[in-house]
């Protein structure tokens, strides 16, 4: 049991009182269900909604034929339709991906809407589709941005005495939060809207809806107090949200719309299938000479999704010559989106696998190889790091897993019929700080209220914010109320990119500091360190005292490079006959500045590690390329880790403040918890078996029958 405050919203969560997006019932609410395309590319020739419209309880069926015009979709008169852009719901009869919504059916009960949706029949003109990246890699194109870069000499690795070149593949993975994406849309007036929706950012969702429906932002209220996980899937306004808002207007009633689990595979993004090739070379004593990192990632035909998986090769190690090539292949699948550790998780699998391969070629311990190429300043920008204690993290992790027990010779240790192996892999992610505001109100009864529009998808944002406020104000946590998940509250960015504590936490810190100062001024004579706030308010006949502050970083970004770091150590057992891999032990170390909320921070690292184990061993979206549809679109076939797959996981923290990022010295940790884990597992599997798996996930079929090979 870790010390630290328990979650402030924990009681609501363990009693079932926490209400998520689909769990409100505005008066007169009805239900919407989407109908998805059964072809992958082409156009709708006919769509028959008569049977659905006649079905009991049905209020409305909307398709591209009768959809009201959505203001934000319209192209300015005389201008051509842009070649690419956000997907437009019911805009025309074009089919761009399998499962694309072609109708929304609204009825007075969920069952009736679901049944009626099954009665909507479409006929299509199907065109040939392309869903396989490997067959379409030749058509890949360079995205906008810095995908292709060069530092030093191109392909310098080829000149190194010890070198290797290998290809690495990660399949498409889906976020699969336990809560289905859901929205309740309610029009309060012709141009005024309230929604309860699953989002990582109520204000970004508000702004997104405002753009699509051309409404003033202030006319839109977005609520999302509890979010049942998201991992990146709730960072934008998705078509199902547009459908519910449209439908609510059409039937003049609030509409609730939940995606089904199968829709969660097609309609709210995913981590893109990515092919990578790494060429890496070093001197005989292990100094890196050059890295060439090439990647082709999947995107849709209508949007370019650029997550920059090659960035890790530029900034992780001190290497004089690095060049990267990044391309996108447009496929007839919905757009990918950010998924925990976006870009870096993909890139780190390739880089940290390649480094491990190199360590065996060089016969140098993988930790030693990393220390030989330790970057003390950012190799890319030349700036000093704001803080970096990754060397300490290596030591902590190596001790934690008993790295000295690792046999450097692969496939040399067996225990109770299982092959034993150790591996490690590291992660990095930019430590960001955005702009946010917070309001702090001290009430007459001594209660402190903190308000900001942030969301909490699970890490325990409220708990961290209350911890910060309690520390600054010297007030016990149970006297602090934290209001969030409401777009009318002070400015907060979406919860993403591991930036919430650094960003919103700074605003809360500043608001509390300013509020305390206000009290100090009332007291006079320099005040006191522990003011009795309620007494001072009473003394001055004030009902309350409040401040609202906006906070953002300053010029420190010009001087320093900001990153969080992690390293994962894994011990695996591999069954020689069946190829089953069991993670026996995991030790994960984060160098992410000061730890604000130890108990929830530990859970966040453990959770990210488990996500990484899923990525390594089981997660894979399987498309039947003949039809272009996902065949494992459910939890029985798309495997995520379950309890039996996961051992006790040790989460360790360097816990040294970053002196430059923010007043708390805290950097993000949500992404680094996962980044590098897939390589750590793959490296451990190699150590156990001598088999290098370069295409995830490491399922038993890739290792099966080793007992025969060995005998």
């Amino acid at each position, binding site marked *: 049991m870790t010390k630290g405050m328990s979650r402030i919203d924990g009681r609501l969560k363990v009693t079932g009182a926490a209400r998520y997006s689909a769990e*409100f019932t505005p008066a007169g609410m*009805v239900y919407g269900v989407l109908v998805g395309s059964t072809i992958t590319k082409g156009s709708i020739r006919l769509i028959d909604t008569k049977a659905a419209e006649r079905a009991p309880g049905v209020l409305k069926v909307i398709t591209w034929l009768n959809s009201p015009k959505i203001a934000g979709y319209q192209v300015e008169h005389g201008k051509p339709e842009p070649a690419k852009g956000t997907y437009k719901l019911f805009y025309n009869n074009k089919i761009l991906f399998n499962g694309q919504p072609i109708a929304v059916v609204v009825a007075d009960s969920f069952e009736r809407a679901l049944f009626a949706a099954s009665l909507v029949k479409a006929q299509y003109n199907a065109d040939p589709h392309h869903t396989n990246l490997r067959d379409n890699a030749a058509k890949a194109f360079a995205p906008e941005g810095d995908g292709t870069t060069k530092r030093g000499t191109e392909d310098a690795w080829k000149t190194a005495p010890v070198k290797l070149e290998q290809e690495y593949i990660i399949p498409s993975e889906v976020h699969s939060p336990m809560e289905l994406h859901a929205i309740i849309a309610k029009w309060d007036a012709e141009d005024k809207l309230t929604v309860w929706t699953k989002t990582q950012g109520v204000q970004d969702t508000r702004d997104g809806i405002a753009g699509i429906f051309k409404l003033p932002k202030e006319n839109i209220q977005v609520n999302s107090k509890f979010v049942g996980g998201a991992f990146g899937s709730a960072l934008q306004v998705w078509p199902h949200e547009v459908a519910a808002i449209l439908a609510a207007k059409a039937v003049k009633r609030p509409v609730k719309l939940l995606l089904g689990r199968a829709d969660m595979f097609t309609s709210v993004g995913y981590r893109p299938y990515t092919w990578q090739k790494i060429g890496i070379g070093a001197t005989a004593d292990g100094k890196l000479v050059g890295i060439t990192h090439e990647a082709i990632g999947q995107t849709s035909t209508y949007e370019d999704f650029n997550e920059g998986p090659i960035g890790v090769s530029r900034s992780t190690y001190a290497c004089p010559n690095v060049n990267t090539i990044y391309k996108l292949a447009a496929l007839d699948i919905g757009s990918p989106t950010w998924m925990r550790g976006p870009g870096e998780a993909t890139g780190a699998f390739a880089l940290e696998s390649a480094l491990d391969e190199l360590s065996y070629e060089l016969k140098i311990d993988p930790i030693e190889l990393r220390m030989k190429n330790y970057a003390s300043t950012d190799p890319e920008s030349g700036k000093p790091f704001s803080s970096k204690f990754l060397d300490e993290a290596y030591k902590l992790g190596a001790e934690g897993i008993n790295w000295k027990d690792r046999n450097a010779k692969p496939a040399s240790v067996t225990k109770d019929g299982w092959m034993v192996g150790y591996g490690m892999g590291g992660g990095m992610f930019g430590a960001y700080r955005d702009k946010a505001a917070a309001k702090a109100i001290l009430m007459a009864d001594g209660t402190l209220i903190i308000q900001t529009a942030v969301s909490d998808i699970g890490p*325990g944002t409220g708990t961290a914010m209350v911890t910060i406020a309690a520390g600054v104000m010297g007030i016990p946590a149970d006297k602090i109320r934290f209001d969030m998940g*409401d777009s009318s509250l002070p400015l907060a960015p979406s919860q993403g990119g591991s930036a919430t504590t650094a960003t919103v936490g700074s605003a809360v810190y500043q608001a509390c500091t300013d509020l305390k100062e206000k009290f100090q001024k009332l007291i006079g004579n320099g005040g006191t360190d522990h003011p009795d706030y309620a007494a001072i308010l009473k003394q001055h006949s004030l009902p309350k005292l409040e401040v609202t502050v906006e906070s953002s970083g300053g010029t420190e970004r010009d001087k320093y490079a900001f990153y969080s770091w992690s390293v994962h150590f894994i011990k695996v057992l591999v069954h020689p006959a069946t190829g089953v891999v069991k993670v026996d032990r995991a030790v994960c170390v984060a160098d992410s500045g000061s730890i604000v909320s130890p108990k929830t921070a530990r859970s966040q690292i453990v959770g990210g590690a488990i996500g990484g184990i899923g990525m390594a061993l089981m997660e894979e979206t399987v498309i039947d390329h003949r039809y272009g549809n996902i065949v494992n679109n459910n939890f029985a076939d798309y495997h995520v880790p379950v*309890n039996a797959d*996961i051992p006790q996981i040790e989460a360790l923290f360097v816990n040294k403040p970053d002196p430059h990022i923010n007043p708390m010295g805290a950097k993000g940790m949500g992404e680094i918890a996962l980044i590098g884990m897939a390589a750590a597992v793959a490296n451990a599997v190699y150590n156990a078996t001598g088999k290098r798996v370069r295409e995830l996930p490491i399922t038993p079929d890739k290792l099966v029958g080793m007992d025969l090979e060995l005998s």
Partner: protein
Amino acid sequence: MEDERDHALPGSEPEAKDNSRRNFLKQSTLLTAIALTPGTAVKAAEMHVDEKIAAVFEKMPIKMEVNGVAHSLSVEPRATLLDILREQLDLTGTKKGCDHGQCGACTVHVDGHRVNSCLTLGVMASGKKITTIEGLAKGDELHPMQEAFLKHDGFQCGYCTPGQIMSAVACIREGHANSEMEIREYMSGNICRCGAYPNIVNAIQEVKEGGQAV
């Protein structure tokens, strides 16, 4: 705003719109007339009365006890226990994660046994005693498993948590919590995507070892 909640049942009419069907439903004698009189039936068909009749015959009366409270309900035979709990009884603590019995978020106790309420039709639960997460605590006093989940941080986003807790209580009652391995195995029907598994196991072990009645 977040606090806005009224407990009107979904589908209840906020205003006059579409009231004709509701009024019709109240006039059950007319239904009998339709069945007996051909002329009326033809006319009724033209008026889409078939839909209105369906509305009545689609529903089945059931009685069930939920968290100690007796309920007489009228449900569609195809309505799942999960949707009845969430949409009709406003007991939203029981979560919908997959509708296929694959994730465990909807776990409730039916006559003391854990079941996936998404795979249970409401009509199958007729005459049974249901306990949901809302019925686990005794007033303000949390169930020991709820306390243990809080203490061990057995969750993050909280969405799978009600199902995990209902499963965890059953896991001990069934005698399947005798070792860490056994707990992991018997809790594997409840997916936690945030990855709180080790904490969940620790919570269950503590309750089991504490010997409290569950």
